[in-house]
């Protein structure tokens, strides 16, 4: 049986991966607003995705304010695409 990527399969992280997949990059405020996740929840899941090499985190100062920006790495994009393909295969059967 095809294995799902357990790291992505967790609902909160799946939400974060799909949120980041459709943009080039987004900051903490934007991801939090689009997902509705609390700061703590968001940080802890992002830390796991960063540890796996799926997400790149950039911390900088913009107009003297700290800004944390997230973007999917190429590895993360491929992992998400593989996850989507696996889900489709599990639900629809193997694709020709």
């Amino acid at each position: 049986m095809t294995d799902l990527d357990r790291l992505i399969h967790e609902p909160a992280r799946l939400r974060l991966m799909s949120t980041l997949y459709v943009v080039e990059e987004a900051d903490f405020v934007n991801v939090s607003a689009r997902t509705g996740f609390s700061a703590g929840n968001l940080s802890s899941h992002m830390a796991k995705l960063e540890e796996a090499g799926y997400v790149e985190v950039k911390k900088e100062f913009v107009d003297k304010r700290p800004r944390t920006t997230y973007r999917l790495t190429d590895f993360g994009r491929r992992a998400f695409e593989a996850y989507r393909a696996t889900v489709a295969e599990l639900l629809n059967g193997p694709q020709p």
Partner: protein
Amino acid sequence: MTSIDVKQLEATAYRGSFSDGLVDVFVGLGLLWIGASWILLPSLVPLSVVGPPVIAVALFPVRQRVLEPRVGYVRWTAPRRHWERRQLVGLFAAGATAFGLAAFLASYAVASGETLPEARTFAPAIPAALIAIPAVAVAVATGLGRVWVYVLILVAAAGVTVAYDLEPGWPLAVGGLGVLLGGLWLLARFLRSTPRRA
């Protein structure tokens, strides 16, 4: 749903980025400014076009201080940015073509000394039509339903202007007021429902 529809996710996220209503406030104020100038100071109409850039500069701090702490920063994908650029060029081309056509007809009428009675009748609606045509393009491109409502307001106001032989500024002022009120309502709803996160 048998898979994750990323195109749908992206389109929804992109449309959502216009849900704060600030663009509507800007466009509404700009149209209202030009329309009101046309009604109150007809001789200074060409100068009224400086209004929208002034309004854009004035609204920039509003975006920075009020909206950004709530919506943050996002950079869309390269295909979406290219799409935006194409839409802007298309919008400009549609507006310029419509304007060119109107200018050509007007200059032809002046040069030949012949004006069709219908042309004279519909002339006050031309400025509103010049706004409504690109607005239709925006409605189609973005899928934002409210832009169709704005187009309807503009067309209805243009119809009343023709029927009652009013100044061309009226449909712009009324359309602008409609867009402004829609934008203010969206902005108020957005500020109520979206807390500051930074």
